[in-house]
Structures are given as C-alpha cells and as structure tokens.
C-alpha cells in the first residue's frame, strides 16, 4: 500500500527538499549582495553627470519657471506645493532682510518696500540641488529615494512609505508630500523630457536664459562654459551636500 502512494522514501524526500531549499538559499545569497554603493562620490565613468546653473543677475522674477514646472509635472495648484519656485530677497538700508515668495512667484511680485529703504533686491529661483551627497537619500529607511548614475535625485513612489524623513532632511526645502498619493514628490529634473532629448520644462521656458543645464562631464557643455565664465557658488556650502546647483552672483544672505 505504501509503495502505491509514492515511490519516495522519507530519506529521498528530505534529500530533494534540502537540494531545492538550499539552491534557492545559495542563489539569493549570490544575487542580492552585489550592490554597488556610490553615494559618497560621483561615479568615475564617462556617463552623463548633470549640473544646473542659475544666473541671479539675469532672473527677472516672472515666475514662469515655477508655473511651467507645475503644468509639466502635474504638481497641485495650491500655493504650498512646489518643485521649483522663486523668492525675492530684499536687503534694507538698516541691514534687515525680507524674503518674499507669494505663491512661489507664479502670480508675479509686488514690491512691498519703498525704493528709498532698499539697499539691494534680487530674485533667487530655487529648485532641487540634485546633491551628490544628498542628505535626503541617506535618511530614507526603505531605499525609496536615491541618486541615479547620472546624478539625478529621484523618488520611487511605489516604495515610498510617506514617513517624511527626507522632507525634514533636505536643507533646501525641495520636497513635499503629494496630497493625492501620500508619497514624497520632488523635482526629477524632468527626466521624462531628458529621455526624449528635450530640456527640463523650467529651462525650456526661462525668458532670459537665466537657467543653464548640462552635463558636467562634457567639457564643451553649456554648464561648463557657464561655470568657467562666472563666479559661482552653491547655497549652504558648509553643509557639504555636494550640491550641483550653481548660482552666479549669489549673496551670502541667501539661505
């Protein structure tokens, strides 16, 4: 009767089972530990390594970049969700600083301080700095945000658990929680446009060409020309975030 049920002996059953289980265990041990970690320095390959330049002297504060970003990326219209926005810094004669950004600059700026009191005033367009040592990717507990080999900081919405650690970690305030999905959203440098060979929307739309974008590894690129010809600075250099958003004529007041 026993033999009719199965020809397998108990010993064979355990033997085959052990082979299958052990095979999977060995396979998993081989495949999952081959991670490449390059978070601390840029890859030394020949691939693209994107950088951004913004010329504060040229920015006229029209807010078209902030508007274009919202339209291209379906960012909620409410005035507190931005991937890209513009701030107006006004330094008064008495040394106090006023920073304004009504609706991120989309509806334009109204001068709120009379001319006599102003020492200087300028616009600062802001967006994700796409840092090479980004604090936001380092705090993610589930590996849902990361730097691509091309130097773009992205969020994996399928993996994000919406814990908001990265929102707090970003020293530039460039992340927000999308109200519809509950996951973190941020500038992707319009990676869907880059793939098609187009410029990101805010660079495409800037009327004064104050925004420059290109491959830092390519010595002939527009961004390298911009960096060579201007005295450029990043925001909060003391944090050593490896920011790749370079501003020309950046005042030390900008935070």
């Amino acid at each position, binding site marked *: 009767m026993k033999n009719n049920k199965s020809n397998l002996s108990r010993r064979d059953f355990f033997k085959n089972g052990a082979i299958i*289980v*052990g095979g*999977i*265990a060995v396979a*998993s041990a081989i*495949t*999952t*530990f081959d*991670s*490449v*970690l*390059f*978070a601390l320095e840029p890859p030394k390959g020949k691939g693209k390594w994107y950088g951004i330049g913004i010329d504060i*002297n*040229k920015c*006229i*504060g*029209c807010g*078209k970049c902030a508007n*274009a970003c919202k*339209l*291209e*990326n379906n960012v909620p219209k409410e005035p507190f969700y931005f991937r890209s926005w513009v701030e*107006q*810094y*006004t330094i008064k004669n008495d040394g106090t600083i006023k920073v304004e950004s009504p609706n991120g600059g989309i*509806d*334009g*700026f*109204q*001068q709120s*301080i009379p*001319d006599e009191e102003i020492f200087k*005033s300028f*616009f600062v367009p802001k967006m994700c700095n796409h840092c090479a040592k980004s604090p936001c990717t380092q705090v993610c507990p589930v*590996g849902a*945000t*990361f*730097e*691509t*080999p091309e130097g773009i900081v*992205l*969020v*994996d919405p*399928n*993996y994000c658990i919406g814990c908001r650690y990265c929102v707090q970690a970003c020293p530039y305030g460039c992340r927000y929680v999308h109200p519809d999905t509950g996951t973190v959203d941020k500038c*992707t440098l319009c*990676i*869907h*446009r880059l*793939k*098609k060979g*187009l*410029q990101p*929307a805010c660079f*495409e*739309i800037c*009327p*004064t*060409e104050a925004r420059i974008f290109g491959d830092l590894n390519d010595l002939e690129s527009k961004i390298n020309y911009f960096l060579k010809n201007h005295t450029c600075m990043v925001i909060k250099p003391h944090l050593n975030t490896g920011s790749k958003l370079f501003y020309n004529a950046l005042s030390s007041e900008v935070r």
Partner: protein
Amino acid sequence: MPQHLKRLISFFAILLILFLIMRQVLIPKSFGQLGHYRADAISENQVRELHYAGSENCTKCHDSIHIEKDEGYHKQLKCEVCHGPGLKHTQYADKFKDGHLPDSLLLHKPIERKECALCHQKNAARTKILFDTIDNTMIVQIDAMKHKLLNKKTKEEQKCIKCHNPHQP
C-alpha cells in the same frame, strides 16, 4: 558535540535558510543593481506625459509670427513662455487642416494687463538687469498703476496690446 548544541545549531541554520528564502521572494529583482534602491524606478520615473513642445514645433505652422518676433525685443522668448504648454496643440494640429481647432486645443492668449506685468511691472529687483543678448538694454519696466490708457467713454483701463504688439513690442 552535545545533543542540545546540535539542536540549537540546526535550529539557527533553518532560521537562516528561511531568512534567505524570504529575502529572495520579497526583494524586487532590480533592487541593488545600481545601489540601495530599485533600478526599475528610474525607467518608471521616465514614463510620464509631456506638456511642453518647444518653439521649433510652433514655427512649422506659425512661421510668419516667428519672423516678426525675431526682429523685436522679444526675440529670445520662446512661444510657450506666454502661450503656455502646447504639445497637444502641435500634435493634433495636422488633423484639423482647415485651421479650426476645438477650443480645448487652442492655446492661451495673454491679453490681460497683469500678464504683461509679470515681467514688466516695476520692481527694485529688476532695475539692474542687463542682457547679454540684446545690446545690453535694461528690461522695460512700467508702473502699471500710472502707465495706462483709459477708454474715453467707459473710463476702463485699456489692455496693453491696444498700443503694444507683443510679438514686436
């Protein structure tokens, strides 16, 4: 080896094997290929709808406006700066040969005073701006409260385009 140690070792060995199997099943395949993340997420981020077409696509049909604009101070402005995203407009333009696109595909015409004022409203932060491209001229700034023309009958503010051609200001 004592019996209880053997049991303990085999127990931990089973736990380790179970852990490795769970790992294999639960962690996505592309996780760890490029770093501590799902490599597939890059291509998933790349799949999104585009909205801006680029001004080269505009000039295919509207070349006369392009030539007109190229002679004026607005020559470095791309069409979509004022008219808004136009990829759908350019994609479906061929299907309506008679030139009558449905309203949903028509682009925005910025004729209101506040839309010109976005760039040209007087502001202290705009005064020192010099352009490399247009013989170092300053951006024209107006005080929208003072620089205006009233309709003689209704006393309403006239639109900027009453006097200024936006394609050749």
